[in-house]
């Protein structure tokens, strides 16, 4: 008998602690030996920093990859996806096919984005092509809607750049860098309201890539009616769906918290738009998540001690095309409502069941292939090993355009069946 798992966390959240305690694990302090550390992204930076030189042993695991920011920082994610597209194109992959306007048919799933100040000239060029467009400015390193604003005139961005340059010199450092993305100004509205999707994705290893999708994601609704008019540009409640922002709105409801389950969304879309387009939408969402992970897999430090549960933010436009907005490394574990608490408790529970088999002291050399029974509300999204054993021609079929044609072979809707075959 190997003894009890020793855990530690620097995030004092009941959904975590209750889960650890339920398993009979033992809490230890920072200076003691530990097996499982659920840490914030600040801590992970220290743990893996060069000067620290801390080496994890085989019986230790942590909840972040050392350079998770390749995916979770807005600028780096965009950079990696752009690089991935070029690579696919160079290899002559059918994934990189373009339409007559030179747009990627399958890999165009992130809104046009530039880094500021670095890509300022490129941005101006793009802006002039479409001067009536609205753009959203986001600081690269911040989360929960902080520091975000919208612009629709070049003068606004010039003013911003002047202001920030004079204020301090650090503007040039990547910390204060911004991304500017084309704002999705035709979002799908339900009940006249704008929303985004928050989906949870677990990655247990990047090489080979193994990832799981949590079935119980949710839609986050703006409490204020969506009007794309420019006079409302300053009213952040209209545009941002982050709960952290919405909580400050007058209309915030503490019973449902503006959150609607993905199963509600599916029922609504299937009822009003039909089954085929709904299935296609969800297939495409799964597809862009897998592509985003494939895009960062080569640069990710695939440390065997690590796993990560990401919060994916996706916006659906009125043509039912999903757009990847950003990926969060430490999705909020704060519960805004009773249902939210249950959801997050179960999310952690299912995550632990996959990454810590049987709740025993981990051995990070295990093959990371959990049995189906422990998946809970997760479903396998992609398993590179399985996909390869099915033969390389599989990858050929992996374009969303062909997914519909494959409906016959996949029984029922994708929510219920396994999602492994088509990638």
């Amino acid at each position, binding site marked *: 008998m190997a003894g009890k798992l020793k855990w530690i966390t620097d995030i004092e959240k009941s959904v975590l602690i209750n889960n650890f305690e339920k398993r009979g694990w033992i809490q230890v302090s920072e200076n003691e030996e530990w097996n499982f550390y659920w840490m914030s992204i600040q801590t992970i930076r220290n743990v893996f920093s060069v000067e620290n030189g801390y080496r994890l042993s085989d019986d230790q695991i942590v909840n972040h990859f050392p350079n998770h920011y390749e995916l979770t920082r807005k600028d780096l994610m965009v950079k990696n996806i752009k690089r991935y597209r070029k690579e696919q194109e160079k290899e002559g992959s059918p994934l990189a096919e373009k339409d007559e306007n030179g747009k990627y048919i399958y890999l165009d799933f992130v809104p046009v984005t530039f880094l500021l100040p670095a890509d300022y000239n490129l941005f101006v060029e793009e802006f002039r092509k479409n001067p009536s467009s609205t753009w959203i400015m986001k600081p690269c390193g911040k989360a929960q809607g902080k520091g975000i604003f919208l612009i629709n005139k070049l003068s606004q961005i010039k003013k911003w750049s002047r202001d920030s340059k004079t204020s301090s010199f650090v503007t040039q450092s990547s910390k204060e860098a911004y991304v500017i993305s084309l704002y999705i100004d035709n979002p799908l509205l339900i*009940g006249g309201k704008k929303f985004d999707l928050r989906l949870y994705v677990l990655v247990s290893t990047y090489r080979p890539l193994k990832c799981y999708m949590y079935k119980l994601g949710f839609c986050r609704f703006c409490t204020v009616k969506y009007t794309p008019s420019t006079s409302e540009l300053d009213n952040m409640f209209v545009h941002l769906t982050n709960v952290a922002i919405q909580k400050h709105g007058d209309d915030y*409801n503490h*019973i*449902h918290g503006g959150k609607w389950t993905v199963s*509600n969304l599916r029922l609504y879309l299937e*009822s*009003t738009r039909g*089954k085929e387009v709904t299935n296609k939408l969800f297939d495409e969402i799964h597809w862009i998540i897998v592509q985003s992970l494939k895009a960062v897999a080569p640069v990710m430090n695939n440390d065997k001690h690590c796993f990560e549960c990401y919060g994916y933010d996706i916006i659906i436009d009125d043509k039912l095309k999903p757009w990847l907005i950003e990926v969060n490394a430490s999705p909020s574990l704060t519960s805004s409502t009773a249902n939210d608490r249950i959801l997050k408790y179960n999310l952690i529970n299912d995550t632990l069941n996959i990454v810590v088999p049987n709740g025993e002291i981990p051995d990070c050399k295990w093959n990371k292939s959990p049995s189906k029974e422990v998946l809970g509300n997760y479903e396998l999204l992609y398993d590179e090993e399985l996909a390869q054993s099915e033969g390389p021609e599989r990858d050929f079929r992996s374009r969303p355009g062909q997914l519909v044609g494959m409906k016959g072979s996949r*029984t029922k809707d994708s929510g219920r069946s396994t999602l492994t075959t088509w990638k």
Partner: protein
Amino acid sequence: MLHSEGELPFVIAHMVQKLRGSALHSQLERQARISLHRSEIKLESLKEDIKEFLKISGWEKKLQNAVYRELNVHQLPSHPLATAEHIKEPLAYMRRAQASWEKRILKSLNSMCTEQSIPLARKRPIAEQKELLIKWNEMGTDEPDLSHFRPVYAPKDFLEVLINLRNPNYENSDQPSFRSHLGLIQVPLQVKSIPELTEHFKELGLNIGQLGIDDSTQVPAELFEGEHIHIGNKVFRQQDSAAAQQYVRQGCPTALRAELWALILNISNQPEVMLYYEQLKANVILYDLLADSLIYKDVKLTASNDDFYFVFEDYLYQVLLCFSRDTSVLEHFAYNSASPPKSYIRGKLGLEEYAVVYPPNGVIPFHGFSMYVAPLCYLYHEPSKLYQVFREMYVRFFFRLHSISSHPSGIISLCLLFETLLQSHLPQLFYHLREIGAQPLRISFKWMVRAFSGYLATDQLLLLWDRILGYNSLEILAVLATAVFAFRAVNLMEVTSLAAAEAVLADLSTLKVMPLLQIFLFAAVIN
């Protein structure tokens, strides 16, 4: 809907009269006239040719659907000499009870007006009209002060009325016998027994495919779901109300539901309908009604806080405010035991010629009323379509859930059916709950009054409403209420108070409706 042969001519005459003034009648006439220019219409066989033409061009189907609607909605008088009063409600004591209940509601409404010195209705100043027009799509963001408004009544107030209802011609002997009804409802009405219910709901049987059971992950689609969807598409193409109604008894596929329900309810796609909705909307803009505040209050208290429906808050206002002004709703009072409340022009109290129906549709909303609309928001994103479907659902079904009547789908019959089923098939549970002061009806009443809206998960609720439409009856609500008690019987046997029993039954959102109904009706050895 069963009529003996002798009544048939009478039924036909009634139907002809009913349809004569309708838009469909003039459309048919116009089509027939236009068809005269067609080469296949011959003078020598004019009548037959036109009939054939109307058949091929789909107009015959439309007529059939209209006739079918009338048969479904109106209770045809069983005797040519039946009075209007009799058609509303045949039992005199029920009529009296309903009348005095209405008096109470109206009094409460009037006193609210007087207390707060607000008029029942007023014309909005121009500025306010403009503002409302701009805000039409986001009325939910408006936060009027509604603290001094209270719902006119809640289901539990209505339950008290039903509990105290007695038939003066029936001796309620104080000596309890094994026959006596130990529930709260003490009026003698005929309700179906389990054998009658299994016969009535035979399409829900164990050997018949059901959406809500046989479409689960474990069952391959080829066995039932695939074929069922295929048939559904065919039914939709046929545009036949009766076929659609039969079809949804086995459940309606999600993607077909909006269309098939509209077909069953005979909702037209004509542009006039949209125009009609726009007129109602214009009326909302023009006049402010006290009833609007009641609607606001109700939405804020119910749907706005609901995990499933909060998204549709604005749609609910757009439907309900128009509904309160829709005088075509008044037609349903011909077969509703209730009568529209009347108000009098100031200073003319009691003078019939100065009486006006208030609100204009004759329906005073109560606590939870907006939940009748909320689930429909999942099906129709076009407000005018949503509106029509709701209105038709109301005048066919929902009005029965808050009127005192002897109709088999009326709330009293549902309560009695629920209590009878529970008492005769789960006697131990029934007595136990009664002993601890937790009369089962006190818990299930609100479920039935709201047709389970807001209690079940939406997908399950829609499966339930499929069957309401399919059987043109609300009896399924009482059966489900009983089945829920049966399902939680073990836990309920352990409770010792009403509060504890309510806690056991507080969350129904995880229940699967169809398995519960099927097991209760067909699988349990209870006969």
